[in-house]
């Protein structure tokens, strides 16, 4: 898996918060959990396209700000009984720096 882009420092994403990265593939949301894990999903809810980056992060989930669907940060899938998936992107944190791969 190549093409890692350095996009932010961990510091720049608030705990239980998110930041948006504008890419050629559209906006990608970076989420940070309370434990400092970072996940990346396409910033588009599978339900009606709401910007997931604007939702409330809890555990390893985010609640879409539009209609409250809960999306798993790990794989982008809606929590049952809802269905749908926001595309997940590979992301890694090394030495306090966040790298995103759009591959």
């Amino acid at each position, binding site marked *: 898996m190549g093409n890692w*882009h350095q*996009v*932010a420092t961990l510091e*720049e994403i*608030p*705990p*239980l*918060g998110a*930041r*948006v*990265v*504008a*890419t*050629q593939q559209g*906006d990608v949301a*970076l989420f940070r959990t*309370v434990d400092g894990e970072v996940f990346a999903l396409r910033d588009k809810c599978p339900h*009606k396209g*709401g*910007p997931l980056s*604007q*939702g*409330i*992060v*809890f*555990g390893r989930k985010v*609640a879409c*700000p*539009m*209609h*409250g669907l*809960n999306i798993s940060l790990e794989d982008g899938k809606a929590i049952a*009984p809802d269905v749908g998936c926001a595309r997940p992107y590979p992301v890694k944190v090394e030495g306090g720096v966040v790298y*995103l791969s759009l591959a």
Partner: protein
Amino acid sequence: MKRMKLVMVGNGMAGVRTLEELLKLVPDMYDITVFGAEPYPNYNRIMLSPVLAGEQGIQDIILNDLDWYAQHNITLHLGKKVVCIDRSKKQVVAEDGTTAKYDRLLLATGSNPVILPVPGKELDGVIGYRDIQDTNAMIAAAEKYKKAVVIGGGLLGLEAANGLAIRGMDVSVVHLMPWLMERQLDQIAAQMLQASLEAKGLKFLLEKQTQELVAGPNSSDGGRVIAIRFKDGSEIPADLVVMAVGIRPNTALAESAGIYCDRGIVVDDTMQTYSPGIYAVGECVSHRGTAYGLVAPLFDMGKVCANHLAQMGIARYQGSVTSTKLKVTGIDLFSAGDFTGSEQTEDIVLHDAAGGVYKRLVLRDDKLAGAVMYGDTKDGSWYFQMIRDGKNVAEIRSHLMFGQSHLGNTGHQGQNSAASMPDEMEVCGCNGVCKGTIVKAIKEKGLFTLEEVRKHTKASASCGSCTGLVEQILASTVGGAYAPQANTVKPLCDCTELTHEEVRKAIRKEKLLAIPQTMEFLNWRTPNGCAACRPALNYYLLCAWPHEARDDPQSRFINERAHANIQKDGSFSVVPRMHGGVTNPQQLRRIADVAEKYRIPMVKMTGGQRIDLFGVKKEDLPRVWADLGMPSGYAYGKSLRTVKTCVGSEWCRFGVQDSTQLGITIEKAFDRIWTPHKLKIAVSGCPRNCAEASIKDIGVIGVDSGWEIYVAGNGGIKTEVARFLVKVKTHGEVMEYSGAFIQLYREEARYLDRTVHYVERAGLDHIRQRVVQDAASRRALYERLLYALQGAKDPWAKDSVNPREFAALAL
């Protein structure tokens, strides 16, 4: 850690629900083994009647298929009846010799139909009505025989009789008492029910006591029943006799093991039997002297039992009020609570014999004690909820009989009776959900609660105005299994058992100042809550400890984090404050300049006399605010929104008071206060009320001699006219009384309750007491409001803005 062993005897709804609750709490604590005497996985026993009536098949009523047991690594022994509990060896033994050891044992052995001790009870063609096997036997008999007699005119008996009649049998119902369903209905309702069932072809023999079941005379009958003889000597022919005279807790196994039973396996409030490590739930149980035969209480028990099996040790089962609904298509009947009445009770009765409607409400000490309804049951859930909550109904007594006014409101074509709606009619106008979709989900997925229906179908999950309709659909589909959640004990969310009130009390008492600290102290189940509890906690902390509690932006909805309203395309709308709806050329010029500079696609007047700029990009927000040079209008917040005014005595020839100036004063004073939900105020300068103050959270109406203050109005989902609070003389008094009301609402309402919901629950008398009658209380409330407001900063001001919230990252 080695897992403990949990053995469950009985594989029915109560037991399996307990396991489901347990697996939700602690998925890995136990190795679970289940013994079921029937050869089927857990099925929905209350849906046997629709199966008998041919409306559904067996496969439709399976709740947990075999895959479910496999997925959760549950060892399932089907068709194996446990015959012995060896308490010293801690193991159970089944009929075929299978044994299983346990650390905890859960008895969920259910109940048996009562078989009358009359001669002939063992004949062929005489059956109880309890399980799939009985149902199949009835279906088979209906194909071959003609005459059926059902003994017992209760819920189960009538459903059985109806099913057999639909299958073409000639059915008579024999009942010992003078009227049907005497434990659920009074005589008038029972007679109306009987008439409708007679119209469907059923026959009734009341006050008849069965003496003997008569066997056929020759061997060709194979010892089959041919008739039923009564004590009065009369006799009617019967080739099938269904005994539906009641159920009896199945305690044989427990008794043989020496576990204390008294008309049921006796359990305490933790669902533990007298024998340590052995729990019991369901119809086999006797709790505080009562054995329950309806599903809703059994689920409550399951929840409590799971809590203790999971070693959390906090839940208590304190008994249930039950309600009944007959599942016979085309008949609407509902009863709940104690409706027999006594010298201490009062009745309110509505009886339209020709229209087929009867309603009787029984009140005791200004509280609803019971309700019986026939023909029009749409408010059944509402009454039931009030019975369970013990709500004081003195204030609403005069219109109590006419039901819940908001049912017929917007979004569902004025419909307020689910029964009369066709399947394809839309129930939920927000999410486009039709009645048929809801019914299908309830049946196929085995849903029992409003929350489950919301999760699966989205019906009533948005604005909630169709909640009453969805409850009706749920109640008529699952019958007696439906129990609305009692308002008084509703937990804040799935992360805790505690109610809003309990959480707030702890925050005040322990001086909790931050969300993580609160969650830790209150043993939250989740590490950092959910999207429902975090905003509530954030508000409760700020309300209890102004200037001390830590505001957590990550626990606020995006609108309050970005200080603007998110729109469907992810852009935002911006509403600057215009106190009292008054603006001037300078402000309008700046707004026009901003709209052009940032290419704002739409500029619109709001309903609250302000200007809204739509389609602003998030990253532009801080610059838009700076260029506007106006304070935030808080149009995005659970906070004071707008103070709408009419022009008043300064210009209007009818105006008697200066409403515009008072509106400006109020808005300037209370601006920037956080509240449980949005708060709207209006001030009118005369009783013509052009500011529409009567549908606002606080409405102030000028009269010649002063100001009338109204509270708890609402113009939205639940159109509600504001109620008169007090009349005062001066601007200063209006400020103090309305401020005290705002603070009381802030301190006592649940997060996301509008004032209308809060006042409905707390009662207007309570509000009057705290805000009007008790002057010291009013002043204290007002002072606490002013203290909370001290030094509140405009979130749009340059030094308030957190630039990181608004800037996107670059690749």
